[in-house]
């Protein structure tokens, strides 16, 4: 009796998950379909599948007709995203650990200040920041993304790591101290292995956000040779002249592949939680 009840609830769960999956993935399916449609069909019909498929959008979009092809933009994006993600992980871990596990004068004030930097809308900081980066000579480079990552200027991640560290019992630190480890060793050898899923979240989030960032790259990067995909994608979208939406759709599909692959591949770190890493009592 209990068993059948369980399997019924399991089936309901599955149906729910599958229906939800369809809703979640529908836009992507639609984009793939739209890659094979003409403009008229994209805008004039509702169907997912192209009625009169148009091929060649992927090829044409990939080569582009300007000076640089999509491969350049992809390469540029990696150049920008990988260091940014790497440094974010390091700085967020250090800063998060500092706030979570130590008490020092002004800690509360500093913590609130850190959070407060997220509360002022970016719109009004764009110009002062732009002028500031100009003085540093960083315009048209990826430094406006990489250096803030190095210096922990993504409070979201710092705060996130604080919360994850604080979720871990202090006994872990205590046992490390008893073994004579210094605070860095405690972080590296005892706490970090327990935060794999948190670290993975930092990687995925920062990867996706930097990958998709349009406003900042638009402002800071001016050479076409250095355009990342977010700019490359919109490069032919004009307000008055006609352009092929299917090429935009095709390249949109390609450009979301790296984040999706990263996400899928790195998932095993998610399945491993504290349970499998094992905590010695």
């Amino acid at each position, binding site marked *: 009796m209990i068993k059948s009840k369980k399997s019924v609830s399991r089936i309901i769960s599955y149906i729910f998950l599958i229906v939800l999956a369809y809703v979640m993935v529908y836009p992507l399916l639609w984009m793939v379909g739209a890659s094979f449609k003409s403009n008229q069909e994209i805008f004039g019909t509702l169907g997912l599948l192209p009625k009169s498929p148009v091929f060649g959008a992927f090829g044409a979009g990939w080569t582009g007709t300007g000076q640089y092809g999509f491969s350049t933009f992809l390469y540029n994006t990696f150049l920008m995203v990988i260091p940014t993600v790497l440094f974010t992980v390091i700085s967020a871990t250090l800063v998060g650990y*500092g706030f979570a596990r130590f*008490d020092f004068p002004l800690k509360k004030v500093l913590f609130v200040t850190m959070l407060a930097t997220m*509360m002022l809308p970016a*719109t009004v*900081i764009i110009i002062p920041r732009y002028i500031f980066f100009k003085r540093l000579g960083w315009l048209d480079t990826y430094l406006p993304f990489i250096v803030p990552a190095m210096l922990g200027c993504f409070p979201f991640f710092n705060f996130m790591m604080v*919360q994850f560290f604080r979720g871990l019992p202090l006994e872990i630190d205590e046992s490390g101290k008893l073994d004579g480890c210094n605070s860095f060793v405690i972080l590296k050898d005892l706490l970090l292995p327990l935060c794999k899923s948190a670290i993975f979240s930092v990687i995925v989030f920062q990867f996706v956000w930097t990958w998709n960032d349009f406003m900042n790259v638009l402002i800071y990067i001016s050479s076409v040779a250095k355009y990342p995909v977010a700019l490359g994608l919109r490069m032919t979208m004009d307000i008055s002249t006609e352009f092929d939406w299917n090429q935009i759709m095709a390249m949109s599909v390609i450009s979301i592949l790296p*984040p999706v692959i990263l996400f899928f591949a790195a998932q095993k770190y998610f399945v491993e939680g504290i349970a499998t890493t094992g905590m010695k009592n």
Partner: protein
Amino acid sequence: MKKGNEMLTRKRYTYIGYLYILPWIIGFLVLQLAPLINSFWYSFTNFQLLGDPKFLGLDNYKKIFTNDPTFLQSLKVTSYYVLIAVPLKLGFALLIAIILNQNIKGINFFRTLYYIPSILGGSVAISVLWKYLFMNQGIVNNLLSVVGIPATDWLGDPRYALGTISLVTVWQFGSSMLLFLAGLKQIPVSQYEAARIDGAGRLRIFAQITIPELSPIILFNLIMQMINAFQDFTSAFVITQGGPLKSTYLYGLMLYDQGFKFFKMGYSSALSWILFVIILFFTSLTFRSSESWVHYGDSL
């Protein structure tokens, strides 16, 4: 044991903490402080992007509070947006995370699919698609007509547009879901086992173990989603552009228009600092309340 912890970490300052947060301190002083001060100064001027700003004293603020109907409209729209989108998104994210935390076949597959909307973000394709889903002759109305619900202008009717825009936000619940999942993985299995031995039912386990253990992450998600929602305008920007009848004219959209459409950067800065104070107020409130419901592993 309890006392011992407090002795060790609460009472004695450990200056080495500064060393860990040093990157951020430098980053804040070097990269963030100057632009903040700048924008604060601009809020008292008529800064127009070009030319020298002229000091206006409190004029910008005075105008905002006494003579700007758009400000009130935006504030209203934004409050509704925060109230609808944040709880729905977090509730949904938590529900899905808990379902996905069970041993379900193909879980990696589902997780990836559910995260896809968050990857798509404000993609150019999405803005087009949402219109086609929710327009008068759109897919949603087609589906609803099957069950006899008459066609509705989900994005064109001022009564429904904000709700529809909020749906886009809820639909991108992937990031919150991921954090909940990560938090769930941190809960020691031993605790569940102990509760089960005590004969606790599913609901009790959820209320007495899952929620308290997850509370630091719930707090984090709540605060971050709130901060974001107050400033967010991507969906409204690309889908409705604030319309119809300013029913989706979110605060962030107004800031953008004032700053980059009308060049009133000084005015826009003043508006921003008002929003800053509002967000700060609600964040502090949440933090204050968290003392009674957030449970940290380090304060066991």
